[in-house]
């Protein structure tokens, strides 16, 4: 029997009933959405108290998503980096190619129980859009995905995938034309179609109950990883590393380990062209608390309270906010938040591809880049677990473009 996770201390037990993690989180929405958000919180509280709901969820994760995802010891990568042994939690092998589907399966079940017939979603890299379009197709629901016009160019294969699945992809031309603007547009849609529409938020941000609910769905990653790791090695990993945009794959891995005080945790933000430049997407490393998209959290914001444009090589991390639980874990110093630059990320992308035959998503490559630096400082008997949150098929055109390589010639 694997060792059960220890009881969580009160500081990690959030959110409270109003969705607060310390000073973060909450419900900051326009009046039109207040009731919809409250109904969602009630529906989730009632369904998540029922074992049948989780049984339904687990069956879908097993038979449709293909869980549990493997825990893989990357021996050649460990050798190349020197130091700790590198283990990968293979969320890239999930149906649709990333961890995002864990959440859309859960929320689609909720939408079905609430009798909603129309799904909407925002997407950055397109992985959450694809995962939403996928569950919509499977359940015969209408699906509208909001995507920044700039991201549509960066992530063309995912756009086409969503269309094949029957979703309508709506290009968002306002603001910075990326993920944050897609989220604004989805909130506008929700306020307009509030009676029949279910908004599937793709990360652990937004108004309560989303940060908690998405965390609960994604925690399957950490629960599995903890069990698998103990079964394989008899010990817990020394450190966990995951990339953080909104932070859903990271919280999914971290949360079941929060009570394991000997397990160090690193959340890797997109440092873009460097944290000392304005061109990054690292609110926890270089931002300050404010209010955006329904919650109080760390933001990339100027001294007048305007949200700053972000930059990252990866569309999925190109977001000026972060989930409120991460903000709280930062203040508690339970998780250390660091950055990986575009250049370090691309190096790690190639390393994993060449050494292990696994093409990682650019988002996940941020985690790998930091893991490489960390591993080299660790001892050879130590273990480092990296969440390989997605696969890189969607990124190969972008990488070719960035590096000036010829795409499509031998």
């Amino acid at each position, binding site marked *: 029997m694997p060792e059960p996770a220890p009881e969580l201390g009160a500081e990690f037990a959030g959110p409270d009933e*109003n969705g607060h993690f310390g000073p973060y989180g*909450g*419900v*900051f*929405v*326009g*009046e*039109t*959405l*207040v*009731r*919809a958000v409250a109904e969602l919180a009630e529906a989730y509280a009632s369904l998540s108290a029922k074992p049948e709901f989780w049984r339904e969820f687990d069956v879908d994760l097993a038979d449709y998503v293909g869980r549990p995802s493997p825990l893989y010891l990357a021996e050649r990568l460990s050798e190349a980096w020197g130091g700790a042994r590198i283990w990968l939690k293979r969320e890239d092998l999930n149906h649709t190619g990333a961890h995002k589907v864990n959440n859309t399966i859960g929320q689609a079940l909720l939408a079905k129980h609430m009798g909603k017939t129309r799904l909407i979603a925002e997407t950055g890299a397109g992985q959450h859009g694809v995962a939403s379009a996928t569950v919509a197709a499977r359940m015969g629901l209408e699906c509208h995905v909001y995507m920044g016009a700039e991201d549509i160019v960066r992530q063309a294969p995912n756009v086409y995938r969503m269309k094949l699945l029957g979703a309508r992809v709506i290009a968002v031309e*306002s*603001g910075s034309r990326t993920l*944050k*603007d897609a*989220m*604004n547009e989805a*909130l*506008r849609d929700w*306020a*307009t*179609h*509030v*009676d029949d529409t279910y908004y599937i938020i793709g990360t652990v941000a937004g108004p309560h109950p989303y940060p908690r609910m998405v965390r609960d769905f994604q925690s399957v990653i950490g629960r599995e990883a903890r069990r698998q790791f103990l079964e394989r090695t008899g010990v817990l990993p020394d450190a966990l590393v995951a990339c953080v945009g909104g932070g859903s794959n990271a919280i999914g891995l971290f949360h079941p380990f929060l009570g394991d005080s000997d397990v160090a945790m690193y959340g890797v933000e997109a440092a873009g062209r460097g944290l000392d430049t304005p061109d990054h997407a690292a609110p926890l490393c270089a931002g*300050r608390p*404010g*209010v*955006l*998209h*329904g919650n*109080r959290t760390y*933001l990339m*914001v100027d*001294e*007048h*309270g*305007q*949200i700053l444009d972000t930059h990252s090589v990866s569309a999925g991390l190109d977001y000026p906010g972060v989930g409120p639980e991460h903000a709280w874990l930062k203040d508690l110093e339970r998780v250390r938040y660091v950055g990986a630059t575009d250049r370090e990320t691309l190096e790690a992308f190639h390393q994993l591809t060449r050494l292990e035959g696994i093409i990682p998503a650019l988002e996940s490559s941020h985690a790998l880049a930091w893991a490489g630096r960390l591993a080299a400082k660790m001892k050879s008997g130590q273990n480092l677990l990296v969440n390989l949150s997605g696969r890189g098929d969607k990124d190969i055109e972008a990488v070719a473009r960035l590096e000036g390589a010829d795409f499509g010639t031998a």
Partner: protein
Amino acid sequence: MSRIAPCAARAREQERGLLIPYLVAGDPDFATTLALMRELVARGADMIELGIPFSDPSSDGPVIQRGVERALAGGATLAGVLELARRFRDQDGRTPVILMGYLNPIEIMGYGEFTAGCARAGVDGVLVVDMPLAEAGDLPALLAGQGIDRIFLVSPTTAPCRAREIIEYTSGYLYYVSLKGVTGAALEDRESVAGNIAGLRKLTDLPIIIGFGIRDEETALAMNALGDGVIIGSALVEKIEALPPEATRHPEAIGEAAELIGRVRRALDHDGKRVS
């Protein structure tokens, strides 16, 4: 003290509907907004709602979004909005000014500094779109301490028990959102507005002002018949969008943009109610 209650009392006495234009402060620059505010008052606006520009206006439709983008491109900040309000107040000691915006710029400035700034500028009311009562912290108390009205929204999705609670904390006027959607959307379900306003009437003596989707004489008359007045935003911001560059050099263009409010004023005043 806030000028809103005396203004509403005058209108009630004269049996005229309150007409409140909304415009984005600094769209496309503060000089133009100031000129427009004066014109709007001259053409019959009872109060003015000044929008605080914010980069992510997720409750607003495309017209106001573009207005906000123009204001931000022109360098508008919350400090600049307060300065604009102060300059208006220097010239007009009577017309209430209400600031309407999103929480983040206020949060980054700090509630204390914001409230003090409003008091210095002669601001009469504050409405924060994405700050439900439960998340308001000490902002309402700080505003109340300066005699500034706290205006909250009630929408078609607000449950009666919640409306009661909102009303308890609201002063000045109650802003009724006429539709499910964003600013500038089409007003389709007028019967439900009538029913909901009738329900709210039983709960409060506050003036009930209806906004969202009101864009001309016809919609203004229809909604004014149900409440105590109307707010016109997107339709006015659309006119501002069409202003020529350096609009302050073209007073006739500013007047033309503000004339939307003049037309609605005349329509409301001839709406069978007694005109003083």
